[in-house]
């Protein structure tokens, strides 16, 4: 068979995408601390990772923030999407649409700085939020996450035949009833992927958290960042491998669920 340009480029592209991830996983099992020296198989970095109280605390805090912010953002983002797609005669809809996509294109440094300055101004004005930490990180994460959820749910809602909801209304269901009986079950896949996206983004955020966090609230990316700035550190490799494992399991489970329930 003749060698063709695009398949080769695509293959190289996939190697490029997965090579670094594979290298992280492989070297997490390296006995030697030096990257270039293969010192034999070992799981000692995993033991070291779990023994590192700072990383464990930060991981717990990050998971907490990710779950709470993804959940609140899913509720708020779904509300926003409903308003944008389904509500008729709402004044200022264009502005809302612009605001909701805003956090998607705004650089993190600007979102972080502007939220921080807002929190400082609010504190001196009304005394809330008192200082910076968990609350301010949560608010920041909910804000950008709701934008992502809104976009995901919005596209699902606009793909959906709106006469299905009208039919329920026509059969005597109140608008709230229509939402819970019809709309919600139909957009559940979008809600799940929106939540997962928000969860991942929250778990991943370094820049915004760094701006709006205060003493005592150090998230996992902040710990990782301060460690890797100083160079390669094998326990971070171990952490990365665990994340890759968790994501892989998640993908396999969702693939199996999809197969069980064919559309």
């Amino acid at each position, binding site marked *: 068979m003749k060698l063709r340009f695009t398949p080769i480029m695509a293959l190289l592209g996939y190697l490029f995408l997965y090579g670094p991830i594979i290298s992280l996983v492989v070297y997490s099992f390296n006995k030697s601390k030096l990257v270039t020296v293969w010192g034999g198989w070992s799981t000692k970095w995993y033991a070291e990772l779990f023994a590192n109280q700072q990383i464990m605390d930060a991981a717990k805090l990050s998971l907490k923030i990710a779950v709470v912010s993804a959940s609140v953002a899913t509720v708020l983002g779904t509300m926003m999407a409903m308003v944008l797609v389904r509500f008729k005669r709402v004044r200022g809809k264009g502005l809302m649409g612009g605001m909701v996509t805003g956090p998607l294109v705004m650089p993190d440094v600007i979102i972080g700085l502007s939220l921080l300055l807002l929190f400082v101004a609010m504190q001196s004005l009304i005394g809330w939020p008192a200082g910076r930490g968990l609350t301010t990180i949560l608010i920041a994460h909910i804000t950008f996450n*709701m934008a992502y959820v809104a976009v995901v749910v919005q596209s699902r809602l606009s793909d959906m035949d709106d006469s299905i909801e009208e039919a329920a209304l026509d059969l005597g269901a109140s608008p709230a009833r229509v939402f819970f009986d019809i709309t919600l079950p139909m957009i559940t896949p979008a809600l799940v992927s929106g939540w997962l996206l928000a969860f991942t983004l929250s778990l991943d955020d370094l820049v915004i958290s760094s701006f709006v966090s205060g003493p005592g609230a150090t998230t996992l990316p902040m710990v990782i960042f301060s460690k890797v700035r100083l160079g390669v550190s094998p326990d971070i490799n171990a952490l990365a491998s665990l994340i890759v494992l968790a994501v892989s399991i998640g993908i396999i489970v969702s693939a199996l669920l999809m197969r069980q329930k064919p559309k």
Partner: protein
Amino acid sequence: MRLGRRFVIAVPTLWLLLFFMVPFLVVLKISLAEPRIAIPPYSPLWEWVNGSLKFNINLENYSYMWEDSLYLNAYLSSIKIAAIATLLTLLAGYPMAYYIARSPEPRRSILLLLVVLPFWTSFLLRVYAWIGILKTNGILNAVLLWAGIIDEPLVIMQTDVAVYIGIVYTYLPFLILPLYANLVKLDDTLLEASRDLGASRMSSFFRITLPLSMPGIIAGSMLVFIPVLGEYVIPALLGGPDTLMIGKVLWNEYFSNRDWPVASAVAIVMLVIMMIPIMILRRAQARGAEI
């Protein structure tokens, strides 16, 4: 019931107003203030002096930015790095998007999933992975030395090259997805018609596929270009002290110099600059929706 409707409209709207729109006004306000050694470390925009309202509008932060070549250079260098990185991402991403779009169905979904998958693992850790690969005694040099391709280890880490690699790597999915969405809609019969009329494979590509995929190219490129303009993590981890990017400058202005008014002015100018690619993106997306 009316109440429920109002509630659903009001809650997310107020949230976004308070935590997305108002912060920009605060930044604008502080960019017009003077730095002070106080809490907060800037002068108020207006104060009551002897019963009358006095405004302290101070444009010095902006003129300072104009005078100190650091800022101008940082903006220009950010634009340059973002532009080159976008082009490189496009060169790497187009063949992939094209290949995926042309693949038969079960394979197509898997290939697409494989592009998106790395995105679900930590961004920070994916950038970090390159440190181990690119550093002087890293994997890449080890492999190249072992293969005898080079005699001396290459210095890639802490250079702009490392920054480009990091950007292409992390932003590739953002380019491939919109481009794929565009290419997959391309009607096969158009290419067949072109081939039927005697055009070569190459010329069919340049005359048919490429022009028709322009909205996808523009949308994808802007989705890379815009966030890269303000990127902080990649230049901070992979770049060297000479790698000048505005996100890094803003970060240092805030965290190291604690100069909030200048940091705010930097942010405002950055926003103004970003309006142009954002408008281009909006138009490309609107055009893409039409096709």
